[in-house]
């Protein structure tokens, strides 16, 4: 690679092309001499660099680009449309040629399908999840890229600030490379497959069990991580996989839906563009911006600096050792009182110095840990991409569609600072491209219609990105004419999808029809493809990721298409909280403020379930109660700080023992098989690789209202004791367990009277539910024995039996059973009614 003369040019050219692409679109919307000057600088730099590496075609086009711009250096007026088109054409050609310099890449995996309701990624991100139009990563280049971007390319791009890269060439590279590195480094060297025992090479691991002749039993970290999480073999890990695994594919195919789009000139154009590397269907960049890398480097530097006291600690230790030796000498020779006094003084000083050094080391370690946490957070953040990276491509799609139809449309992207999993972003991007094109083609009216409707001639298409708990919402709003629902209805009736002359379908039904695809709202088939085509791509993406698409439309006012996708990975800033020994993080953007609580305030808040804040009574929830729901809260200091967590509508005060700073962290979804209370929004990894809970603001608010609704909270959290089911029949045990568990009880099972007695004595239960006929101790005896035990006699017992005779019932009463349920007449509601009566919630 070091012999490759284009190595640095590629990096520089990509940066410049990204900046030019974004700049041209900005120029279209906000012409001005500054922007022209900047674009001229980019083009000029590119021209010079291209000549050095003999890329004459690129140099010529950069020159032509300059020629177009030079006359507009001083004026602030918009460029004529033909010149604007020429700039875009040159931009595309340059982009295409720069992309052609890239080494060929392997074909990416097709995106896996997730069943509805399942979020992708599971315990680990799904690296193979890619957009259909994504042309995949450059294996082995990402790390190199990072270095280049940070060093060599630093001098390349001229001033002008970092324009968010739209770099459609390298989606996922960073992610892939990060995974690859982790995979490689943590893969045990001598691993093999089959049923052999494995050795785990993890220093952080607890002592590996050595058993049976010194053989070691341990885990397979790579199996823990990759295979079970995604169900796919390592090779499909995507970006980081060996390139040899799949043959390279030179260009991607345009989305077939584009072809279906028919004669729409806008679509035709984009289809043509789709064959070139500049086509906007490509995925967003996973390239970290220079600022991110700088922040990471700062954090590394800071962590490094924090080690200084440990280094000087070495000298301090030497001195202390010498003092201790001197003291030892004094004690050996000293016999007089003066000697003893002197030794005592030395000893006292030694103890003080040792204490000081110890404190310094403790502080330093704490600080270093905090800094490393920050480093980790920032490094993980580099795996994510800012949402703004898709805006340039969307803007271009809007512009092209508008240009093709002779409309003027302004594009606006909002919420671009949100950082997301590149795979989710790539899929959303793919759907949004269709949605924004359709907004222009079908939503925005021609000039005269807009004027007639009293709207500004220039239409607007706004794409907003926003985080909603574990989801991200992409909202595309236009101020056009809205959906032509009457046309949808006519088409649907013509195709027999709706009964002609039936009850008029409501708006939602019609929108659903559009979402399902195949229905065009366009008045003429030749001019445009229907809205349905874009929307069913969005529908596909949502289905694939377990998300949702919704449409709101208002005739004459515009339409809003919203795509909500679950997040597999998400970066955020969090406030670290401690409550009753548990550490959790709450998203900083949901924290309004923090208030110190005096002990009496805390006590009052806990009793009344509310506290005064900003002249309002805010519901109060001690975090420990939410975290230890249903179990005993371990002793802690009690809340000393109230964290005011709120959304736009509601706020609650969450009582915590301590605030432990803020941190940048990457939130992962809870794994499958780990259902959690709504207060938990996800999990992050701490420095030691242990999961740390991330709270969900919405969940906290809901839980606060549920537990107290602002009213008085019980001093002791309400907890229901578990129920012990004693029955020798597996079927009955399982049946009873399922009934009780679905009614919200915790259930323990015992298969015999003996076992039941053991368990009754080892745990506190709220109720015993026992069969009568069992080998060994029968149900009557079980009840009688528990009645005889003063510790257990308070726990009610219900007999469940197939015996229905009055005699047996009487015997049940006699031994002290609280109720008697006959299996033959087994009635779930009756049983639950007995239990509710006996075990108050």
């Amino acid at each position, binding site marked *: 690679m070091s012999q490759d003369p284009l190595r640095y040019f590629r990096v520089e050219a990509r940066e410049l092309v990204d900046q030019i692409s974004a700049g041209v679109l900005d120029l279209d919307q906000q012409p001005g001499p500054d922007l022209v000057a900047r674009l001229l600088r980019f083009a000029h730099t590119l021209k010079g660099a291209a000549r050095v590496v003999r890329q004459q075609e690129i140099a010529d086009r950069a020159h032509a680009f300059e020629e177009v711009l030079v006359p507009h250096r001083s004026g602030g007026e918009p460029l004529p449309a033909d010149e604007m088109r020429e700039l875009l054409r040159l931009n595309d050609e340059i982009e295409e040629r720069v992309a052609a310099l890239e080494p060929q890449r392997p074909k990416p995996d097709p995106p896996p399908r997730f069943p509805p309701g399942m979020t992708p990624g*599971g*315990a*680990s991100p799904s690296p193979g999840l890619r957009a259909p139009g994504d042309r995949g990563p450059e294996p082995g280049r990402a790390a190199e890229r990072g270095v280049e971007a940070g060093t060599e390319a630093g001098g390349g791009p001229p001033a002008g600030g970092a324009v968010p890269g739209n770099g459609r060439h390298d989606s996922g590279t960073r992610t892939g490379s990060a995974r690859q590195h*982790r995979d490689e480094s943590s893969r045990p060297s001598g691993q093999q497959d089959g*049923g052999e025992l*494995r050795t*785990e090479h993890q220093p952080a*691991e*607890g*002592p590996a*069990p050595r*058993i*049976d002749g010194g053989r070691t*039993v*341990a*885990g397979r*970290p*790579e*199996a*823990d*991580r990759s295979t*079970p*999480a*995604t169900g796919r073999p390592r090779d499909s890990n995507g970006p980081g996989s060996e390139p040899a695994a799949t043959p390279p594919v030179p260009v991607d195919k345009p989305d077939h839906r584009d072809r279906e789009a028919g004669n729409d000139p806008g679509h035709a154009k984009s289809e043509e563009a789709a064959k070139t590397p500049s086509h906007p269907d490509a995925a967003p960049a996973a390239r970290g911006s220079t600022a991110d890398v700088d922040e990471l480097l700062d954090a590394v530097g800071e962590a490094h600096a924090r080690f200084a006291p440990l280094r000087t600690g070495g000298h301090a230790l030497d001195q202390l050792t010498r003092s201790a030796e001197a003291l030892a000498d004094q004690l050996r020779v000293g016999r007089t009182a003066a000697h003893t006094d002197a030794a005592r003084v030395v000893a006292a000083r030694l103890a003080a110095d040792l204490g000081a050094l110890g404190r310094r080391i403790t502080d330093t370690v704490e600080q270093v840990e905090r800094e490393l946490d920050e480093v980790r957070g920032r490094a993980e953040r580099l795996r994510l991409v800012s949402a703004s990276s898709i805006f340039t491509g969307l803007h271009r799609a809007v512009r092209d569609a508008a240009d093709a139809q002779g409309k003027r449309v302004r594009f606006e992207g909002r919420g671009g600072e949100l950082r997301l999993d590149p795979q989710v972003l790539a899929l959303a991007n793919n759907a949004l491209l269709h949605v924004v094109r359709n907004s222009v083609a079908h939503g925005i009216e021609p000039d005269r219609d807009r004027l007639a409707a009293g709207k500004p001639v220039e239409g607007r298409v706004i794409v907003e990105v926003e985080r909603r708990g574990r989801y991200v919402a992409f909202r595309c709003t236009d101020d056009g004419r809205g959906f032509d629902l009457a046309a949808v209805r006519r088409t649907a009736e013509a195709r027999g999808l709706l009964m002609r002359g039936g009850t008029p379908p409501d708006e939602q039904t019609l929108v659903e029809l559009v979402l399902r695809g195949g229905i065009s709202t366009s008045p003429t088939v030749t001019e445009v493809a229907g809205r349905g085509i874009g929307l069913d791509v969005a529908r596909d993406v949502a289905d694939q990721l377990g998300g949702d698409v919704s449409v709101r439309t208002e005739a004459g006012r515009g339409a809003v298409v919203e795509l909500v996708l679950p997040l597999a990975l998400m970066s955020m800033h969090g406030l670290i909280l401690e409550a009753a020994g*548990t550490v959790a993080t709450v998203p900083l953007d949901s924290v309004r403020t923090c208030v110190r609580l005096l002990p009496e305030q805390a006590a009052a808040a806990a009793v009344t379930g509310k506290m005064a804040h900003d002249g309002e009574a805010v519901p109060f929830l001690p975090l420990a109660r*939410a*975290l*230890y*729901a*249903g179990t005993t809260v371990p002793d802690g200091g009690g809340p000393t700080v109230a964290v005011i967590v709120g959304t736009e509508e509601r706020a609650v005060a969450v009582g915590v023992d301590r605030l432990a700073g803020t941190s940048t962290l990457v939130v992962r979804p*809870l*794994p*499958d*098989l*780990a*259902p*959690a*209370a709504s*207060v*938990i929004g996800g*999990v992050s*990894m701490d420095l*030691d*690789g*242990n*999961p*740390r*809970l991330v709270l969900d603001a919405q969940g906290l608010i809901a839980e606060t209202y549920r537990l107290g609704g602002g009213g008085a909270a019980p001093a002791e959290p309400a907890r229901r004791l*578990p129920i012990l089911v004693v029955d020798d029949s*597996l079927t009955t*045990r399982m049946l009873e367990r399922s009934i009780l*568990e679905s009614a919200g009880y915790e259930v*323990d*099972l*015992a*298969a015999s009277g003996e*076992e039941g007695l*053991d368990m009754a004595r*080892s*745990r506190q239960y709220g109720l015993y539910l026992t069969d009568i006929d069992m080998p060994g101790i029968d149900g009557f005896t079980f009840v009688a024995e528990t009645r005889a035990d003063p510790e257990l006699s308070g726990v009610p017992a219900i007999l469940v039996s197939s015996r229905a005779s009055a005699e047996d019932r009487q015997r049940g009463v006699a031994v002290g059973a609280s109720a008697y349920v006959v299996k033959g007449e087994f009635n779930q509601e009756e049983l639950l009614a007995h239990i509710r009566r006996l075990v108050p919630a």
Partner: protein
Amino acid sequence: MSPNDVKNRLTELRDDFDRSFAEPARQHDAEYAELLAIRAGGRPYALRLAQASGVHSDRPVTPLPGPQAALLGVAGFSGAIVPVYDLAALLGHPAPERPRWLVVAAGAPPLALAFHDLDGHVRVPTSTIVDEASGNAGRDVLRGMVPLPGGIRPIVDLLSARAVVHQLTGHTTYNTEER
């Protein structure tokens, strides 16, 4: 020992040695099962190592508030977040002590079961294992028994344990044919 005995013994050993190469090695695995002798909630069990992808001790488990009493929390394994269930609770006899051992069940999605003590690792001829087509009279997580020094131990079937957890959590993608 007479010289003749030595000679016979030598021949015997030589034959054994030669035969060890002649015999197909795979019979080895088929005839033996690797088991872990464990204790959950104070009771002895065994589990098949072939059904596990790792055994760990003293791994921090982050408690997770939620509806499943048997779910102790989540633990981190090389970057993956794995739910940890209390084996004793799944077997129906939860104990107050926190288990210190984790066995990661093979298969997906990730799942670990916690048990209290590890008695040892044993390799037993498969013929000594008492197989059962379906769950024995006790619990449906158990499948078969094995006589080991100290007594007969029921075998915890990790596939069945996984199925129980899937059922508890309403996880539907589990393919019951695996059982």
